[in-house]
């Protein structure tokens, strides 16, 4: 007989069931702001960066997301300039009320942007290399890329010990990153008796470098070190170096090697060395899964800058899972700093300032591919 009690229990069960499934469907996504250069001189690098993030988000969402929630990326254009980076971060934080921010692809932008997010929201800076980003950071500020100091230490050792060059000339981008690079290398290379014969600065929008290269060529150094963050400018510089008749060694600056650069530079980049956190011939399982997903979603080849974007999503997902809450920033920051993370770029940790301690690999361009060198 159907008693009132049975009816009540059945009704309760149905209600709970409905509520349960409604809850499961209604879990809002974790909203991460992806602020990068989508237009202007760095547009292509920004595109690679966002693609890297989207591919990793897809891999994580396919496995169920984080805390049962999907990751949603909201993109903003910082145009590669600090003012826009600041206004985008403000919009993301105040108007769109995102949960976390990933940005700081260019150093100049990162330095300005961290002030907007200071102690307000988790902000992962990705490819910027300037040490002050973490030296003058805040409790929710993290930075993935090795600083230019860390990269130059490793790279200078290699240049001093392995490459048989006695003199170097520099061609450098005229911004915070470039000026720091030149200062670092003058000290490091000087320490092993390599003569720095000269340096020419170029600007963000230059397309013709023949004037600078003619000056550098006349200095007759054994090698020319090219400091170029932007793929398009980099490729033009490498080609024009060879076109100027220079026959010496070309050293590519750390962290700026990517497949598009290799494609555009053609023969000018063959045999050229660089250092990178990402080598496309890696055997890391997470990296391979990411590269497979990337290949399904995008036409470009996975690049270092994309891998940094992917790493930001990967560690954020892990930290949120550990903290149990996408908006408890103290817990997330503690989680990030509290353990070793197994990422697509290998095992990393964060120091007390939020600086990631990454693995730095020597790479070389051989037969138009970027491979790990020794």
């Amino acid at each position, binding site marked *: 007989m159907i008693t009132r009690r049975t009816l009540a229990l059945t009704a309760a069960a149905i209600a709970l069931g409905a509520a349960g499934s409604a809850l499961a469907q209604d879990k809002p996504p974790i909203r991460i702001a992806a602020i990068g250069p989508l237009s202007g001189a760095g547009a*292509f690098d920004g595109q690679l960066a966002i693609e890297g993030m989207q591919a990793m988000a897809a891999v994580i969402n396919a496995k169920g997301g984080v805390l049962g929630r999907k990751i949603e990326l909201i993109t903003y254009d910082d145009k590669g300039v600090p003012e826009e980076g600041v206004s985008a971060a403000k919009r993301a934080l105040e108007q769109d009320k995102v949960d976390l921010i990933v940005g700081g692809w260019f150093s100049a932008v990162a330095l300005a942007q961290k002030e907007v997010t200071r102690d307000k929201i988790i902000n992962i800076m990705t490819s910027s290399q300037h040490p002050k980003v973490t030296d003058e950071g805040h409790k929710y500020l993290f930075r993935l890329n090795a600083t230019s100091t860390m990269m130059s230490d490793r790279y200078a050792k290699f240049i001093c010990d392995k490459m048989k060059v006695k003199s170097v000339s520099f061609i450098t981008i005229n911004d915070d990153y470039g000026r720091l690079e030149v200062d670092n290398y003058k000290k490091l290379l000087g320490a092993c008796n390599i003569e720095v014969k000269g340096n020419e600065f*170029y600007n963000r929008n*230059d*397309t013709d470098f023949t004037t*600078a290269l003619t000056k550098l060529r*006349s200095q007759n150094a054994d090698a020319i070190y090219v400091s170029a963050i932007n793929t398009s400018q980099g490729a*033009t510089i490498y080609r024009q170096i060879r076109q100027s*008749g220079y026959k010496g060694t070309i050293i590519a600056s750390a962290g700026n090697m990517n497949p598009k650069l290799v494609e*555009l530079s053609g023969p000018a980049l063959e045999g050229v060395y660089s250092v990178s956190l990402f080598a496309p011939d890696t055997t890391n399982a997470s990296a391979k899964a990411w590269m497979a997903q990337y290949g399904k979603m995008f036409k470009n080849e996975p690049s270092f800058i994309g891998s940094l974007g992917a790493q930001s999503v990967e560690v954020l997902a892990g930290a949120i899972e550990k903290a149990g809450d996408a908006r408890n920033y103290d817990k997330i920051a503690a989680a990030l700093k509290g353990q070793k993370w197994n990422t697509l770029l290998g095992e990393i940790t964060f120091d007390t300032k939020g600086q990631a301690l990454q693995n730095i690999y020597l790479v070389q361009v051989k037969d138009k591919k970027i491979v790990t060198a020794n």
Partner: protein
Amino acid sequence: MEIVVFAQQVVNGLANGMGYVLIAVGLTLVFGVLRIVNFAHGEFYMLGAYFTYYVTSLAGIDYLGALVIATVAVAAIGVFANQFFFRPLRKEHEFTILLSSLGLALLMANGAEYLFGADPKYVNTRYADETVDIGPLVVTQQRLLVIAVALVMIAGTYWFIRFTRMGKMMQATAQNPEGAALTGINTGFVHAYTFAFACGLAALSGALVGPTAMLTHTVGDWAVLKGFIVVVMGGLGSITGALFGGVLLGIAESLGGGYISLGFKEAIGYAIIILVLLWRPQGLFSVGSGRR
């Protein structure tokens, strides 16, 4: 050694300057005959470079052939651009037409980003990486090609305008549009012809100068700015002015950048226009009458 470096910088400047000349000739013609300040001129340069890229990479046609196809194709697009963006505004104030050209430029640049993508492209020509040694001086074959073609085109354009029937009609329309119409010249046809010719020249310069650097949808901005600097220096409407202005700008940039400061290189062009406009606004080389 110092003299060699100096000579090399002069050669660099000459090569760049000739590229500027090619860009400026079309621009100055359009102003002279149609009285239009065409901000979209750089976008036709951009199209010329992109068309050359796609024709060589997709259709497999060799660079020189692709260059010709691109020039003709963009000239044809120029006819349409004139028809839709400038002809209806013929009777309006020059400023309105200028704004229209600005709108066209934005449309073309952003349309290019949408259609071709934001990734940089490289127009692969076998001349770009091959160098020629002239004594101790080095210059790429591509830049020599730019210089050669620019000289031929300038001479050809000058001869065309002075000695052919159409050229004389263009001169007449430039000097006095109403008078020209009264003598039976179809000024609408002259306008369309001149505009197409100028767009073809812009495309040709894009196809030639493009391979010296990477190609993105923003190159048009760069090109039109250089073009304007040269045109102001040389005098609006003057072909010989464009020649001398372009070469002067190229060499000034190269020497200024080489000996004063590289940051100066871009600034030199702007500094020159300000000086020219203050001191001799009709242009350094223009012969004057009948022009603004």
